[in-house]
Every structure is written in structure tokens, then in C-alpha cells.
């Protein structure tokens, strides 16, 4: 059915919008910004906070612009006296139940409530403080996320995020009236429930109620300790997001400036997670081919297919909770972060002649789940915690500001060596479908000796933001040692956002689909939309970051993981060959079933 246009007036200016649009949409079209708090473009409409109320001519009550569909002939006023008073009162009410010790708050300067309070020049003390009666506690037991109920304004963005985007619902609205709050199951701490630490809630929280646990000061301390040698790795998606927190428009690639800034901050060596992303492809690609051989040739019933990627720690925790029956399907490869960590305190330390206890390994990630991953007890292959501190993109931006460097005036610099070299295949890890594409580029070439049969190596079917993508690759003209794959069609699927992952896993569990290889990323859009990325993150911004990632790939000289000279070298010098005994010791891991709640 074709949609028709609805005509209305906003502040006496006529505007036409598509049927089904909201007053908020119509106002936006006329460049009237109606303030919002509970509204988020990624989420369903809530209409809870009421900050967006507007006056409709002839109506007794005000309407929530975000939740009210336009109607023909409507006359809306977004700044009438009634509206302004109500809006101000509502902001004051929110402040009265909010622990507004702003200067003590991690979100100081980045808080949507603070911004609104500032914009509307509200009188914070207009109403009495309710916060003191509530006895709120701070849950900071998780290594990734801090939940502070005293700062919560009940917009429920987090609850909707956890349910709609991630199908986890670790957070739910609990109780009613004056006791209403955002609850976990029986108010248990976040680290002991199904929370995957994905941080999508953190990314959407308008206040400081949900924030990442930050390790900025610890990292500064290490940098300032002369005994310690601090290496830093940067994940692929950070370079396309960081600029947003440093006054640049979304979609800027800031790789060179970021490296430059990290050096100025004082890291002893600025290295790249992309290096271990390439290594992941070697390990995971080999694992896939080995699994295929075991199943197809040796008829081994103990080998599970489809094989599923294991780079995304939110996804790993999700599957451990929800589909423990599928744990054997996970690739045993550690994520690039953890491969890097394990090598930093072994291979790297040896090459640099450093004792492992002097090496501090820091990673910059678009992700909050990486903080949890680094703390998993399995992640100590080097004999130490392999990754000591994980900072989000946002935390790095704060460090850069603290360091006083003028980011946008910095020269582009190159990563240090060793473990600083990478290919385009590694960069695209940051986008949904990227691991799949990178793996196919390498696996296909290993098997056939020829590049993947896609123009310019761009495997377009695996790209983009469709929730679940499928791709099939016909394998012909194989090398003699891979003769069992001659004529085979490799069937792949990709999901991003755990709601999509859940759908796909259900289908896999029920045997409704048969794939060989599945890539899952916990966050919408993949790592570029990670919970640790700059706020706001939404579809438009994710798209710009994605374009930047593929640009970066296109501009790389090397675009296939197996061509990375440092990767070739590490196998020759240290690991032997992919899936070798040493690889297994350092670069592979195992998983545990977890309880369902």
C-alpha cells in the first residue's frame, strides 16, 4: 500500500510528511529540534520521559512528539509557554530523582540530562531531592559495566536495547510507582546474570547510570612507571570511530593520528590488533578447512559444523548462556585481542629482550565485553594476564584530551614493529561480514591458489546491515591436496546484533539450516557499532563508520591476511604453522556452558 503524505503545521509552518511519521519526525524536517531522552532511533518508541511534549491546537493535554503520529491538519507548537513550563518541570523532576553530583560523574560533560538542564536553565532545587530516601547501591562488580541506580532516570533505553537489539533482557523494568527501577533478575549484580557485557546499554544510557568500568588512571600509572614497558594494540573499528569523540564528523578514518596520539601519550610501543586479526584468519581459516576435511573426508561425527567465529566476546558469553549445545561449533581461536595479549608477553617480549613481567599490555577496543574477556581465567597463556587493561574508544578519546594533544593537528604516523603490520583483511574485521570476507579471501586462495572470484576482492554479499546475510562460494579448480573440496559449495551465514544471532542459532539448533561457516558479531553493525564506541551510535553513524572501514581496506597495499609479512615471519620464527602445537597453546581457547538466567 502506497503511503500518502500528511499535511500539518509546526509552529505555523506547513510541512508534509509520510503517513505514520511522528510529530518528532515532522519537526525534524523543519529543523526544529524537540528535546528527547527516552527516544533512540535504534529502539521502539517508548514515550516515557515526556521531555518531548508539544502542544497540539485544540487538545487538552500535551502530546509526546516521539510517540504521537501526525494527523492531517494538525497544528503543533513546540515552544509555547505551556510546553516550555511543562518541559522545564519535567527536567526538574528528573533531576530530583537523579544523583546529580555532576563533577564526580564519569559522564560529566557527556550527559544528556546535564545538557538539557543546561539548555533549559532549570532550577535544580525547584523540587525536593528524592534520591536520599531510596537507598540505591552501585554495582561495580563486573569488570566491564558499572550500574548506578542513583543516576537512572528510567528512560528504559537500556531495557529496550537489551531486549530488542540483543535478545538478552538481562535488564528489565522492575517494581512500580516510587519503587520502580531498572532491575536484573532478583537484583543480582550484572556480572552474575546473563549480561553479555556488550555495552549496547552503556552506549545508549543518557546519564551515568550505566557506564563502562574505566581503567584510564591505571593505564596512566603504568605509562609513568619507568620499569614497565607498555604496549598498546588498537582494534580495527576504533580508527573509524575515535574521531567522533574528538570533534570530527562520523566517517573519518583517523588511523595515523591515533597512532601519533598514542605515541605522544607515552606508550612504549603502538601496535595493531589488526596484526592478530590477520593471524586469526590464518588460524581460523585452517581450522575451518581442517573441520571440513574431518567431516567430509574422514566422516568424523565428533567434529561440529557449521564452525562459528569466536572474535566477539559478547557473542561468546551469549552462546555460553543460551546455546551451550553449540559450544563445539565455536572456533577454538581466541579473539584477535587475546591472541595479541598472549603474544605480547611471549613472542614480543622475547624479541625485545624484555622480561614478561615488565610488559603491560593495553588494548583499545570499541567494546566493553573485551574488558570481561581479558579477565577470563582462560586468558593467561603467557603465565600472566595476557591483556592487562582494556580501554574503550571513548576512554582513549578522554586520554587524548587529558594528554593535551591537539588531535586534529597531529601528523599521521605508522604503527611500530613488531606486531604492527596488517592487511585490509584485518581492517574489515570491524564491520559485520568482515571476518567472513577476510577468511574467504585467504581460505579460497589456500585451496585453489587463486584469489576469490569477486571483483577487486570485494565479497559484496557478506557486506551491509541486513540482520542475517548468506553467501555461497563455489570452489573449483582446487589444488591436489584439497581435492575433496572440488566442486563443493561453501555455504556461509553472518549475523550481527544478538537478536539476529539468536534467530540464526535457533535455526541451526533445530537443523533448519545447514551452513559450513557462520560469523556472529554481538553488536549491530559489528565492532564498528560496538558498545565502547562514541555516543551516539545509530544506523546513520554505523553506516558512515562502515564506509570508512571499507575505504581503509581498499587503500591498503596488502588485502589478504596470508600476505602479511609479519604473519609469515611469526610462523617461520615462532609458531611453526597454523594450528601448530604452539598456536594451540597461545592462540586457542575453550568455552564453558553458563546458566540460562
Amino acid at each position, binding site marked *: 500500500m502506497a503511503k500518502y503524505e500528511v499535511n500539518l503545521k509546526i509552529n505555523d509552518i506547513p510541512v508534509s510528511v509520510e503517513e505514520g511519521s511522528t510529530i518528532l519526525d515532522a519537526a525534524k524536517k523543519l529543523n526544529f529540534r524537540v528535546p528527547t531522552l527516552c527516544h533512540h532511533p535504534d529502539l521502539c518508541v517508548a514515550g516515557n520521559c515526556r521531555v518531548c511534549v508539544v502542544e497540539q491546537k485544540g487538545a487538552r493535554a500535551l502530546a509526546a512528539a516521539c510517540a504521537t503520529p501526525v494527523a492531517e491538519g494538525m497544528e503543533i507548537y513546540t515552544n509555547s509557554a505551556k510546553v516550555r513550563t511543562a518541559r522545564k518541570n519535567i527536567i526538574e523532576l528528573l533531576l530530583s530523582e537523579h544523583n546529580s553530583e555532576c563533577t564526580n560523574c564519569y559522564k560529566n560533560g557527556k550527559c544528556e540530562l546535564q545538557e538539557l538542564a543546561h539548555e533549559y536553565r532549570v532550577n535544580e532545587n525547584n523540587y525536593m531531592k528524592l534520591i536520599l530516601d531510596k537507598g540505591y547501591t552501585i554495582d561495580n562488580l563486573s569488570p566491564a559495566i558499572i550500574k548506578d541506580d542513583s543516576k537512572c532516570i528510567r528512560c528504559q533505553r537500556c531495557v529496550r536495547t537489551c531486549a530488542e537489539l540483543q535478545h538478552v*533482557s*538481562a535488564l*528489565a523494568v*522492575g517494581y*512500580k510507582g516510587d519503587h520502580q527501577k531498572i532491575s536484573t533478575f*532478583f537484583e543480582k549484580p550484572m556480572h552474575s546474570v546473563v549480561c553479555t557485557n556488550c555495552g549496547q546499554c552503556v552506549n545508549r544510557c543518557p546519564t551515568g547510570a550505566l557506564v563502562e568500568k574505566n581503567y584510564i588512571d591505571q593505564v596512566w600509572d603504568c605509562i609513568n612507571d619507568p620499569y614497565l614497558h607498555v604496549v598498546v594494540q588498537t582494534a580495527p573499528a576504533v580508527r573509524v570511530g575515535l574521531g567522533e569523540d574528538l570533534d570530527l564528523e562520523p566517517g573519518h578514518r583517523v588511523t595515523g593520528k591515533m597512532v601519533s596520539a598514542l605515541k605522544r601519550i607515552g606508550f612504549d610501543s603502538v601496535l595493531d590488533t589488526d596484526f592478530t586479526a590477520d593471524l586469526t584468519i590464518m588460524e581460523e581459516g585452517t581450522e575451518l578447512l581442517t573441520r571440513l576435511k574431518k567431516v567430509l573426508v574422514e566422516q568424523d561425527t565428533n567434529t561440529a559444523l557449521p564452525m562459528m567465529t569466536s572474535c566477539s566476546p559478547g557473542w561468546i558469553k551469549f552462546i555460553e548462556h543460551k546455546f551451550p549445545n553449540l559450544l563445539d561449533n565455536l572456533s577454538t581461536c581466541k579473539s584477535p585481542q587475546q591472541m595479541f595479549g598472549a603474544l605480547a608477553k611471549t613472542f614480543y617480549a622475547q624479541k625485545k629482550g624484555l622480561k614478561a613481567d615488565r610488559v603491560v599490555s593495553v588494548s583499545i577496543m570499541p567494546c566493553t565485553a573485551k574488558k570481561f574477556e581479558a579477565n577470563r581465567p582462560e586468558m593467561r597463556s603467557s603465565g600472566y594476564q595476557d591483556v592487562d587493561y582494556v580501554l574503550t574508544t571513548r576512554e582513549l578519546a578522554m586520554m587524548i584530551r587529558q594528554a593535551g594533544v591537539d588531535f586534529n593537528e597531529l601528523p599521521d604516523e605508522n604503527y611500530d614493529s613488531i606486531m604492527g603490520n596488517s592487511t585490509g583483511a584485518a581492517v574489515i574485521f570491524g564491520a559485520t561480514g568482515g571476518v567472513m570476507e577476510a577468511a574467504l579471501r585467504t581460505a579460497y586462495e589456500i585451496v585453489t591458489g587463486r584469489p576469490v572470484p569477486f571483483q577487486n576482492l570485494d565479497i559484496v554479499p557478506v557486506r551491509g546491515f541486513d540482520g542475517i546475510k548468506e553467501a555461497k562460494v563455489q570452489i573449483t579448480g582446487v589444488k591436489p591436496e584439497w581435492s575433496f573440496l572440488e566442486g563443493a559449495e561453501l555455504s556461509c551465514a553472518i549475523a550481527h546484533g544478538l537478536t539476529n544471532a539468536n534467530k540464526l542459532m535457533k535455526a541451526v539448533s533445530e537443523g533448519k539450516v545447514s551452513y559450513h561457516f557462520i560469523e556472529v558479531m554481538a553488536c549491530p553493525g559489528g565492532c564498528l557499532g560496538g558498545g565502547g564506541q562514541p555516543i551516539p551510535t545509530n544506523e546513520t553513524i554505523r553506516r558512515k563508520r562502515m564506509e570508512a572501514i571499507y575505504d581503509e581496506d581498499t587503500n591498503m597495499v596488502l588485502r589478504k591476511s596470508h600476505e602479511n609479512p609479519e604473519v609469515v615471519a611469526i610462523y617461520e620464527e615462532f609458531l611453526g604453522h597454523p594450528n601448530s602445537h604452539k598456536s594451540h597453546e597461545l592462540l586457542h581457547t575453550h568455552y564453558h556452558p553458563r546458566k*540460562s538466567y
Partner: protein
Amino acid sequence: MTEVKTIIKEKLGKFGATREALMPILQAIVQEKNYLTEEDMVEVAEALDLSAADVYGTATFYTFLDIKPRGKYVIRVCKTISCHMSGKDEIIKTLQDTLKINVGETSADRKFTLLTANCMGWCHKGPVMLVNDEVYPELTPDKAIKIVQEYMAKE
């Protein structure tokens, strides 16, 4: 545990494994056991493919879906205006003295829980209290004592 499984099975038979079954299941469990335990909620969540937090969030919205251990007989005294005017304070005091527990508490033998509740729809016959589903209007302290004593004598 088996009784919860039976309840779930029965309600799923009527409503299907849909969210619509949630309230009837939770209500039936409370009817049976007077409150909801963690284990029960997990079981319900799994049966309906909901998150446990979601079940918890729904249950805590409803005053009668208790999540704290409750006695066999849950006494709820109406505290709203008409019952206030007709002497609910005296009834509560009497019940506290008789049961030797305060409002919000459960007796050591887990037989009684004393709670207050909002308007129960007996404003012309206050003060009123519920003992589980049974309603007792037009209370006087003496009447309240007698009623409680009858329950004390019961199993």
C-alpha cells in the same frame, strides 16, 4: 518442584507457550506456595522462552505476586482512606500484637505474614482485611483477634 512443573504444563495447555500464560502461571504458583522463588521464576522463564529478568520485572509490578517468603496465611489490611478513617491503625496494632510480628514480617513458624494493601473495594464496610483470598469486612479489634485465632487453630 513438581507442582510448579504441573502448573506450567496445565497453563501451557490452555494458553500455549505464549506470554499470555505468564500471569496465570505466576498466580497459580502464588496460590499454591504464597510466593515466587528464584527457581520457580527460572523455570517459568525457560518454559515461556522469556528472560528471567523479564519474568522478575513483571512479577514485581504486581503487589500480589510476592517474591519474598510469605507465610501460609497472608493477611493484608487495607490502609486506604475509608479504612484509615474507620480504624485500620487499631486493627494493624491488634494484629501485630496477636501475631507478634510487624507489618511486612512473617511469623517464625511461617504461618502468617502481615501486610498492608491499597484499597480493596470495601470502603463502606471498613476496616477490611484479606486472609489469602478470603475477605473480612467491618473489623473490630476483637473480631480481628477471633479471625486470626481461627487460622491459628487451623493446619
